[in-house]
């Protein structure tokens, strides 16, 4: 089930002008492609969560420029285009006492995906539960 863990980079950002551009410019300049971008913010700071095509290289590039980040394993499932598809995923996890810490959706090549984070101790279990329910988990996005 480990193959389903997708590496997401969570980067610390301050809530100030130009902060986001600094990071995106740096990543583009190094020919790294974003697969998803999600920004959450508290009052004074935020966390930029990105999935890229080369997470090791991205980490190195950001570390060298002095950004702080941490790598987190997340799961992604393909969005099936029918009413209630989200609900099925959440219900399966909920029935198995797995709590979703946060989630966001992405759109790649006309296909959508539902990215979510569970406690790292629940990750393999969550993948197994979804797999057994015939929900399509993505190995990469």
């Amino acid at each position, binding site marked *: 089930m480990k193959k389903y863990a997708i590496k997401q980079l969570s980067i*610390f950002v301050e809530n100030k002008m130009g902060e986001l551009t600094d990071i995106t410019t740096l990543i583009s300049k190094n020919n790294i492609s974003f697969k998803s971008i999600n920004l959450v913010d508290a009052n004074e700071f935020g966390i930029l969560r990105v999935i890229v095509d080369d997470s090791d290289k991205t980490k190195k590039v950001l570390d060298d420029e002095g950004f702080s980040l941490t790598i987190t394993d997340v799961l992604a499932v393909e969005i099936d285009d029918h009413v209630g598809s989200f609900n099925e995923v959440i219900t399966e996890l909920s029935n198995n006492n797995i709590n979703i810490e946060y989630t966001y959706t992405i759109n790649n090549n006309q296909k959508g995906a539902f990215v979510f984070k569970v406690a790292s101790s629940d990750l393999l279990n969550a993948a197994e539960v979804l797999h057994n329910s015939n929900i399509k988990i993505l190995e990469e996005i």
Partner: protein
Amino acid sequence: MIWNQIESSSREKIEEVQLKRLQETAQRVYSLTPFYKKKFDELKITPNDIKSLDDISKLPFTKKQDLRDHYPFGLFTVPNNEIVRIHSSSGTTGKPTVVGYNKEDMDLWDEVMARVYTMAGATAEDTVHNAYGYGLFTGGLGFHNGAYKVGATVIPSSGGFTDRQVMLMKDFSATILASTPSFALHMAESAKKAGMNFKKDFKLKAGIFGAEPTSDGLKDEVSKTWGIDYHEVYGLSEIIGPGVSCSCKHSNLLHIFEDHFFAEIINSETGEVLPDGQRGELVFTTLTKQALPLIRYRTGDITSLTHEPCACGRTMVRMESIVGRADDMMIINGVNVYPSQVEHVISQTEGLTLNYQIVIDKKGHLDKLEILVEVSDEVMADSIAAMGKLKTDIETAILNNLYVNASVKLVVPRTIERSMGKAVRIIDKRVLEGN
């Protein structure tokens, strides 16, 4: 009005009292404090070498660190059961500076505070609104006991709850305000907002302000806003607390109660004693303290002295309002804070680097302390809640260790300004015009 005749005695009389007391104090510490015995021995002197007041320059200095090294009671010269009061200030590495008083010391403190109140025109007819913090800090209780000594009514309001304090000050018809100058202005704002009339609603005639560096501009502002006489009080817990010196209504200079506290100005670097008019580090030798006598204690405060006579009739030496510090101590809303204390808290927080910056600014009339902390990979978490907790944990640790409120701002690494590769630690945006 002058509380004690000695305050207006001749120079000869004052010096006679000082010399006798200095000899007694030197004898006291030499025979009762191993720390001083060792220091005297190293300098090859004994109390008998003090034959004139000038001989004080032969005596060793005492530093704040010496008090910390003997934490908590190592420099006390009376048995613990004789101690009737302990006060303490926050420490640099978790250990506070501790001071103790026996019964005679408390009487001495009351005496000098009675002189302060009298200098500000307070008598038994007055009501004192005491907004200095009550507790380990010497401000609250020092002012409290002094008011009792002159027979005034004291309202022990302590700090905080500004709106309520303003209401009580009005309703109880306080005539004397004792507070930090910035809190006095903060209260004025609150009174203004409540639509109060400073002339009609308040009976205040004078204020006794201290515990923080104050420019002439700020003094004028407090004095004009409230329409009261401004008296500046100076003190430090190591010497007694508030009541070491105070200004009368004739000038901004502060009369030092030098029959109890012998003042010198020295060159901070060389230790050389400087003459009247020259600025340097203020040094005190306690002449009558029993529980914790201190010899040539270095206050770290920069000022100058003058022996010129004052129109009020007092003859005691006067000092300028403090113009700066010989070290990096900061004063935040009346509380002494050293950058090393902030550093200690940060170093105790796992994963944080020592790249931090202290920014002090004014929010309204109060000081605002902000600490910028760089987020390292080690403390970075993929959760807003966890990052928020990191911020509040540091704020709580600062409050517990330094007794001041700080707001912590998490910043991206390497964003804190570096000067010659070294982080610029302190940015003080408070402007002290006039100094």
